[in-house]
């Protein structure tokens, strides 16, 4: 696993996915217990099926990218992991989704407790109209996190690569920052209470290219400590930053899941290859 990660990182720093290596096609040894495991997961919105029998094992401390055309259910899958779909009355979920062996849809699991272990960053930056400090400390306050909040806020802003830009203006409003800064602020807010998994729903799609590359660098660094699951529209982005890639195609089916290099260079399915090479979607 580690060799693979290193290679992917090397390749992305070269800026290319076209270089083929032999290692890419070899299957890694059986991974340790995955953090997130889905078995036969179905999601319905009313009578409409959004996900169809998804089976996936998301490994620890890696970046797993979820790609696919619009309406293929990739965001729906992401929102299953922290049960954000519960907020939609019409959504119905069948099948198993486990986080470290516990079925998150078990009646005994409190979705609020689940979301405290699984952080989330949204497509549009959505900081609160509060000060920068209060934004980052929000999770610490509501979760009653022990410890020195000032220090945790500084640590989180440093990890989100925002500290140098905002350290002198922690009292000013988070909404006054630029779009890219706002998104990094949201990432700092999400990692401050130290979640186990970080979900990102197209975190760079509303940003300009410079801000996008800053956020991408940040995601790669975060993977050293967190398990990151990222939905993206942008295949180059998935190729650059992820270790594993899952391709969802129309109808909410997970068509292919594997190492990023393999998916982008030598996909097993014809339709995945067509999607990746831009023939549709």
């Amino acid at each position: 696993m580690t060799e693979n990660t290193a290679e992917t990182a090397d390749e992305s720093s070269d800026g290319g996915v076209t270089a083929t290596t032999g290692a890419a096609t070899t299957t890694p040894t059986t991974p340790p217990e995955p953090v997130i495991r889905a078995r036969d997961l179905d999601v319905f919105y009313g009578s409409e099926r959004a996900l169809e029998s998804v089976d996936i094992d998301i490994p620890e401390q890696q970046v797993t990218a979820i790609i696919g055309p619009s309406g293929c259910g990739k965001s729906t899958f992401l929102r299953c992991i922290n049960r954000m779909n519960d907020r939609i009355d019409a959504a119905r979920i069948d099948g198993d989704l486990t986080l470290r062996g516990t079925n998150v849809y078990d009646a005994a699991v409190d979705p609020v407790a689940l979301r405290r272990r699984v952080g989330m960053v949204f497509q549009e930056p959505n900081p609160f109209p509060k000060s920068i400090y209060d934004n980052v400390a929000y999770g610490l306050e509501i979760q009653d996190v022990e410890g020195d909040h000032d220090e945790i806020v500084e640590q989180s802003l440093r990890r989100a690569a925002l500290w140098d830009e905002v350290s002198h203006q922690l009292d000013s409003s988070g909404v006054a920052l630029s779009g890219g800064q706002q998104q990094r602020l949201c990432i700092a807010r999400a990692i401050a209470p130290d979640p186990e998994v970080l979900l990102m729903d197209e975190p760079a799609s509303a940003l300009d290219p410079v801000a996008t590359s800053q956020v991408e660098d940040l995601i790669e660094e975060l993977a050293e400590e967190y398990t990151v699951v990222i939905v993206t529209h942008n295949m180059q982005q998935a190729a650059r930053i992820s270790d594993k890639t899952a391709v969802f195609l129309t109808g909410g089916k997970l068509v292919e899941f594997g190492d990023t290099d393999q998916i982008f260079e030598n996909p097993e399915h014809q339709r995945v290859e067509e999607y990746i090479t831009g023939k549709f979607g």
Partner: protein
Amino acid sequence: MAADTSDVTAGFGQVSRTAGRVFRALLLAATLFGIVFVTILLLYVANDAIQPLTADPGWHLTFFLTLVVPTAGVGAFVYRRSQAAFQTGMLALGFVAVALLFSGGAAMLFIDIVRPLTWLAVVVALAVPAAIAVGVTAYDQRLPFLARFGVTTAAFYLSLFGLPGPLGTVASWLSQLGLPIPLGATLGSVRLVPSVVDVVSGVPVAPAPWLMLVATVGGPIGVVAGHAVARDRGRRARVAASSAFLAVVAVAGVVGPAVGVTPVPAVVVAAVGVVPPAAYAADVAVNAPRERVGLAVPATVIVGSLVGAGIVSVVGLAGPQSWVDWAFLTSAHSTNAESAGFYPSIGGSILLMLSVAVLAFPVGVGAAIYLEEYAPDNWLTRVIDVNISNLAGVPSVVYGLLGFGLFVTHLNRPAGTVLIGGATLGLLILPIIIISAREAIRSVPEAQRAASDGMGATKWQTVRNVVLPRSFSGILTGTILALGRAIGETAPLIMIGAPTIKFSLPTQVSETVTAMPLQVYAWSSLYATPDFYTKVVPAGVVVLVTVLLAMNSVAIVLRNKYQSHD
């Protein structure tokens, strides 16, 4: 050449817009229809009430030269330099006017309704348990919620009512009804533990009333104003600014008697009418250097008015024989039109508005939060939805009937009191508060709720930390506009038996009260001599409309501030 041009434009001739122009003119007419007629009526009324043409032409000329010309000149200069500065200046001017109006109401409250000692006692009785509540929350997070809630509630109850307090009264009622409650009969009359209110208002030696008001009214307003002005300049500057504002209030109490104003109203007017606009002006001057020039507009108006008044009194030019004068505002009704006044009605309306706000605001906002954030989407909720909109359309006289039937007939309360009037008008505007508060809550972006929920916030945490702070100014705006509706209501007050004429202000919520529209109604029906309905009624209407506009202007400023933050 000409022929060439017509060839070129041959396919681009005029398309007829006649129908569109007619339509546009009709729309304009529809827009202006109501505004024009109401404006003309109000001009007539104002003319009857104030009678500007009875003034000496020299009086008009003096104010034209000292007030109108300089204001127009300075205003035009500022407007051309910076529109933002001009807006700031106009806002400051409006702030001065509205703050002075409100300070008049507040002064009335402390002169005739609440004794300063009683007020001090209530403030202390609220401050003590509030401090306990803050302490319990800050220093003992480990206490379970119910324990903290119990301690806080007990502290408030003891401090405000003592033991046994209202619970004892209820117990004695119940024992009269035959319920077996131990000591039930005696609980209503004995007092085991006196409340903080009793202790403080019973002290044998109290400071002068105006000193108590300096502390309880000037103190908080000074602190808020000082923090607003020096917010970015460190703790010492904030303390200095707060002390300076407090000093202004205290000085007013000393200087007031020298210029013929008793200390109590002088302190209240300084605290409510002078310090807030002064703080706004200082805030602009210190924190917004580019808009500083706008302050020239209110300065010109104030200086111009004072200079004009000085010249007029020195030269001896007679002003208009206005029916809206000091005597009208400060005396009670009289059968003689010349000496009829509006004072008890103004005070009554203020008291009614306060009780309506206290009763209807929590209930209305609570209902709105429930319906927007908690209620499941089912047929029952939809039925309630539709019926709240229907309730807003129920005629006010029906609410009066409800108030009479519920409070007077069934609960056996005396008719026409402040409490009954406030409760009835509160019921009347409850649906309006609910509807506008729901609108404000709904305008909080869904992404904000998702962000909070995604952080692992419970529903309550999301509502308290995200939804309410963001919708609060919208809720407040809607409530003020609803209060504006209540202040003009006559029919419900007639139905609950409020007297149309009173000669003094109530000092307790269980005394009868009258209101401005009721008094106007009495003048135009019961005392229908020409002087009453051509002079006194217009004067009353001018005061009523002025108060209404002052309230609505606060709502409009709040709404603009709130919209510019999104």
